[in-house]
């Protein structure tokens, strides 16, 4: 009301603008402000670029003239991957800096720590960079939404492939003994339906030195399919060990660990040939995409705004899609920059094409579906590069 009278005093043009626009804290005629919390320090600081990338993207947006005439200010905060610190930073962003929303945060424990806080405060907690399935819970947490496909969705894709193509498979599973491993396992078994296909499943702790004994157990079980649910270091050990002890099953490898430089190279490329995994992004280093428009746009963005980016880190290019999607939501929200409207726009994305996603994969959300990307493509390693095969597989 005060705004209206002031604006009337200033003149009719301004008044009409003030009447049309609707703001929550963090948005104004001149500015939209949002926050990102990532580990910029500590042992996992390599993931910090997932946040600085989004900030760099909005530098580019601002240079182009901002969003509907407003500059976007991005406040990137460091939590060192410590959940207690994440709470501190989220409260700082929301209560002191007064951001309109928080987006693009990385990490499951860290986002868990602020899950309830963000929902109590009714501040959008959007497009998180974590694969846990709990973010898709609009009934209980209507202000939180992830971006990356969940581990569960991926686990279902492998199960479906095995059911269709190798109905007599004898499956051996190696899994990491924590939520990450169990998210994959539970969904995989659920989709497989027939649990008797699994002849052996062995776990390891992240404190273990090697997984050698687990691999021997799997080999001795007579399994001819190996599902490798391990984080990069252990995944590499497992692949190498299988090769060394002469076990030659059909191998499935979780996408978390399918980086060539971090896993397949140390495991040995000859041991890695014919491994099957999934992907939903275009890998800029893959020669198949050298001419691709998205990848070229990413290269240009990288050269001009984000020289620190490393092509070996998937989050340095997946965040480009995230940033583009945030920009899209802000554009669509138009003059109604309220927290409620942002959630409304973010949960009404229908076949939205974000860059860097594989052809055929789009962002889809609805009021009862807070999982933006639920499709992936299978791929096989040919000894040199990953090659996609088959159709894009959607999992609901």
């Amino acid at each position, binding site marked *: 009301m005060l705004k209206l009278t002031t604006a009337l005093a200033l003149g009719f043009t301004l008044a009409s603008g003030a009447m049309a626009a609707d703001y929550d804290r963090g948005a104004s005629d001149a500015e939209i402000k949002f926050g990102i919390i990532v580990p*910029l*320090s*500590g042992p996992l600081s390599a993931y*910090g670029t997932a946040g*600085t990338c989004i900030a760099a993207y909005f530098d580019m947006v601002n240079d182009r003239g901002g969003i509907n005439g407003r500059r976007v200010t991005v406040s*990137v*905060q*460091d939590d*060192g*991957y*410590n*959940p*207690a610190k994440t*709470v*501190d930073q989220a*409260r*700082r962003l*929301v*209560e*002191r800096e007064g951001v309109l929303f928080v987006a693009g945060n990385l990490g*499951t*424990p*860290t986002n*868990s*720590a602020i*899950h*309830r*806080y963000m929902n109590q405060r009714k501040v959008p907690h959007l497009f998180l960079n974590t694969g846990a399935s709990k973010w898709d819970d609009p009934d209980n947490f209507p202000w939180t939404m992830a971006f990356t496909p969940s581990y569960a969705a991926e686990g279902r894709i492998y199960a479906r492939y095995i059911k269709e193509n190798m109905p007599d498979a004898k499956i051996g599973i190696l899994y990491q*003994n*924590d*939520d*990450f491993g169990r998210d994959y396992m539970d969904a995989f078994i659920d989709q497989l339906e027939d649990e008797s296909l699994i002849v052996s499943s062995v776990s390891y*702790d*992240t*404190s273990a030195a090697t997984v050698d004994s687990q691999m021997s157990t799997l080999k001795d079980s007579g399994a001819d399919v190996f599902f490798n649910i391990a984080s990069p270091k252990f995944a590499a050990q497992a692949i190498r060990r299988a090769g060394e002890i002469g076990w030659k099953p059909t191998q499935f490898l979780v996408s978390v660990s399918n980086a060539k430089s971090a896993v397949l190279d140390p495991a040995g490329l000859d041991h890695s040939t014919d491994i099957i995994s999934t992907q939903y992004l275009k890998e800029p280093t893959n020669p198949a995409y050298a001419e691709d428009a998205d990848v070229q746009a990413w290269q240009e963005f990288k050269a001009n705004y984000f020289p620190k980016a490393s092509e070996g880190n998937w989050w340095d290019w997946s965040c480009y899609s995230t940033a583009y999607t945030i920009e899209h939501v802000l554009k669509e929200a138009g003059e109604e920059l309220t927290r409620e409207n942002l959630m409304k726009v973010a949960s009404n994305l229908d076949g939205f094409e974000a860059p860097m996603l594989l052809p055929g994969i789009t962002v889809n959300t609805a009021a009862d579906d807070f999982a933006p990307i639920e499709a992936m493509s299978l791929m096989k390693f040919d000894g040199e590069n990953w090659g996609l095969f088959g159709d894009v597989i959607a999992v609901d």
Partner: protein
Amino acid sequence: MTTESTDITQALRASRKASVPLARLGYGTAALALLAATGVLEGYELFLASSILSYAIAAMGLNVLMGYNGQISLGHGAFFAIGAYTASICIDHFGVPFAWTPVIAGTVGMVAGWLIGKPALRLEGVYLALATFGLAIATPTVLRSDLFSEWTGGVQGIFLQINPAPDWTSLDLDQSIYLAVVGYFVLFSFLTLRLVRGLNGKAWIATRDNPIAARAMGFDITRAKTRAFVFSVLACSVGGALQAVAVQFVAPDSFPFFLSISLFTAVVVGGLCSPLIGPLLGAVFIVLVPNMTEEIWQGGSWAVYGGVIIAIMAIQPRGLAGMLGWTWNKLATHTND
């Protein structure tokens, strides 16, 4: 070292005699100011203040161990975690009102401290430092482990459903938590002062400065050391419980070994042998300075933080409290002139 600290003790004693009523007045005013802050500060500031005071309680205990008793621990983050998890389990499984959880956490902590302290205190100096550091390294892994996940929530951690004080108090959640934290802070300030100024304090200082002479004078060195250790563990577990309540969430990643180093930093940067002001300033330092350095140079904040620590140690090894005391003395001499 020995003569210097004796000088300090004597000087302290002399100044204390002269200013006991004045000091009491000062403590009373400070406690009232902390209470009054409930009405002045809001949300995030109250949360920060609660965090600072809970670290300050932990640092007070650790200061008794390191400053007065001269033993180095790099593992008190483990006890902070024990306190935090005890409080969380009490709230999550048994519905204990949050304000009482530090009592239970403190009891559990003291038992753990006694069990660990008994054998560990056979070690001295760097050996004890390394043994306690081992505890700190093991903590996150133990908390993650499946063995206790039914209680600890494993990797997921535990969400704390904390209820604010009853409606008639018209306090919101942050205010309720803050008031509880202030209560424990005042209690521990009182306890610490009583201990370090009483016979225990004399035994600790004597054991630190010259164990052989202390034993000859009839002090039971082992008991003195164990008491200092148990008190430090008690304070750390209470601090941890309050911190968990303030954050309303615990997970293994909240207690990395770096936390122990932070507590160590708080004690030394705050100022060894300054029973209250030192730990408080140290806690302010470890909570606020990383946020500030981040604004100076994002991505390089820990380099700035490290630089600040080096600078403080180079300028005044007795830390921030030492600087404050020095400034105070200068001002006092000037006004007297």
